[in-house]
């Protein structure tokens, strides 16, 4: 997915769209990330204004959660589970191989901007480990070859 440069009106519309909820801040951050693949810096002040919070408080909430990004990820996001059940089935070797092949570390993006690899702690596929996710697609009993194939399919 590609995302246009956010305008102030669009951001405000996304914020306003969640204001009917009790405790709307997380839904707002999710809506922004869904639209732009990250939470634009420009949005923080606008959220603060709308919710009657300080910008620091909004930043504090956003930065607490692993999901919210300050900048867009690569075109494809590969999430590899690092949790115990996946480790018992060789997740460490899998992530080592993938990260080495792409020449990046956890959270890194390849220099061509194509792939970001993120750690995830449990996808609920613990009886068919190791588990991974390529964009929105879940992959169980993952190996490097299957991840590569899924990436090609997603390109």
């Amino acid at each position: 997915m590609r995302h246009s440069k956010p305008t102030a009106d669009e951001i405000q519309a996304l914020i306003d769209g969640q204001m009917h909820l009790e405790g709307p801040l997380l839904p707002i951050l999710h809506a922004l990330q869904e639209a732009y693949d990250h939470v634009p810096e420009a949005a923080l002040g606008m959220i603060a204004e709308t919710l009657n919070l300080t910008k620091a408080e909004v930043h504090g909430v956003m930065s607490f959660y692993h999901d919210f990004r300050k900048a867009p990820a690569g075109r494809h996001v590969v999430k590899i589970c690092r949790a115990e059940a996946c480790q018992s089935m060789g997740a460490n070797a899998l992530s080592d191989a993938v990260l080495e092949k792409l020449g990046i570390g956890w959270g890194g993006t390849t220099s061509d901007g194509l792939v970001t690899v993120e750690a995830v702690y449990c996808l609920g596929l613990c009886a068919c480990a190791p588990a991974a996710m390529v964009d929105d697609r879940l992959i169980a009993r993952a190996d490097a070859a299957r991840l590569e194939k899924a990436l090609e399919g997603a390109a």
Partner: protein
Amino acid sequence: MKIWVPMDSAAKALGAEEVVAAIRAEALRRGVEIEIARNGSRGMIWLEPLVEVETPAGRMAFGPMTPEDVSALFEDGHEKALGLTDELDWMKRQTRLTFARCGITDPFSLEQYEALGGLVGLRRALGMTGEQITDEVKLSGLRGRGGAGFPTGIKWDTVRMAHADRKYIVCNADEGDSGTFADRMIMEGDPFCLIEGMTIGGIGCGATKGFVYTRSEYPDAVAVMRRAIDIARAAGVLGPDVLGSGKAFELEVRVGAGAYVCGEETSLLNSLEGKRGVVRAKPPLPALEGAFGKPTVVNNVISLATVPVIFEKGAEFYANFGLGRSKGTIPLQIAGNVRHGGLFETAFGMKLGQIVEDLGGGTASGRAVKAVQVGGPLGAYLGTDQFDTPFGYEEFDGEGALIGHAGLVVFDDTADMLGMARFAMEFCAVESCGKCTPCRIGAVRGVETLDRIAAGDAEAVPLLTDLCETMKDGSLCALGGFTPYPVMSALRLFPEEFGAVREAAE
């Protein structure tokens, strides 16, 4: 010809959608009229995607299916034919109360839900007073299935008796523990069951609004729950007049954002309110001051999804299952390096070794079992010499372990236990909310101390033990407080891997 293919995310991750496409293509090629129905998973994850064909004798199972296996489905004698699903050993040996419908019905069919006992419990509860409802739950002996094991009825009663203009019921569906997937399976496979349980709870306690707080890592469960809530609302199960009773109850799904600590109830409530997911000191209890400062029931998915069967069949029926103070059934989730991984619901009391060796069939790698971590990343490792331990809250406590959310992760003899102990500390450091020092600083020091041990410094072992005691006694919540369980149990079971002699460890 009616063919069932699970839409559970484990089945999809193992290729269910490709199998569906292959079935459609093959049917078209052969000119056979088919109906493809979608269900949840039966829990036999090693057989997923498990395809079922309806016959006059019952549903016949085939699995694990690949697109290449599809063509033979339309002919006699399939090499992956398993027989009638209900007659499979794994299914026959279970006592499915909470998961009675999961994998059988279409998750979006309220009609099928009702045909198998759904809404009977809610209709009964609607004729009861709040006190009668909470008494029924107390009598059932149901305890919190999230891990803490607190009696659900007592929690409900506290909220019921609290005075406030508004009350809430919050479903903790932030199932972040590795090795657990029961919440995900029931949300994807039988969402009305959770909706019914929450509605009974809401009406019993006087809460008119419920939240299902779940994980961004569970996109399928989020989508299924949202759609099921819409269906339930349209059918009058939710809304201002629940099943014509004049009582109101509304439900909403909220999605977390990748913070493990939000599975802790007070941290979850902060997150729900739009704050940093930091832990709150107790008291006040959430039952008195919970979501938005109002009295709030916070229960795990499985606790709430068990409520309908308690009201359908009666508290005594439920309490008759189990062992000692661990009453009823527990959905065991057998995971990790295991041959037959999946979900198996049974009465409390089954021995750990039987679960791993008999149900699980030993390791997937075929090597010897080294250890089993029970209860997620904060649960202890148990060795094969503890395989006689019956599965129950008190029985595991007696072994210095916990059952948690009943996930079991099996490791074979190649597991690096010092590495696993280090990972436990690393995970705690990554996920700590930062509110209390023993967890925030202790976890970082724990990683460093384990690195010293790995480098051959045996003198760091007593330091690690001391640090774990501080974390255990001084942390505000289970994240810092229970991280010592996996660390210390690994040290106790395999002191030689920590470069220490057994005496030094004890």
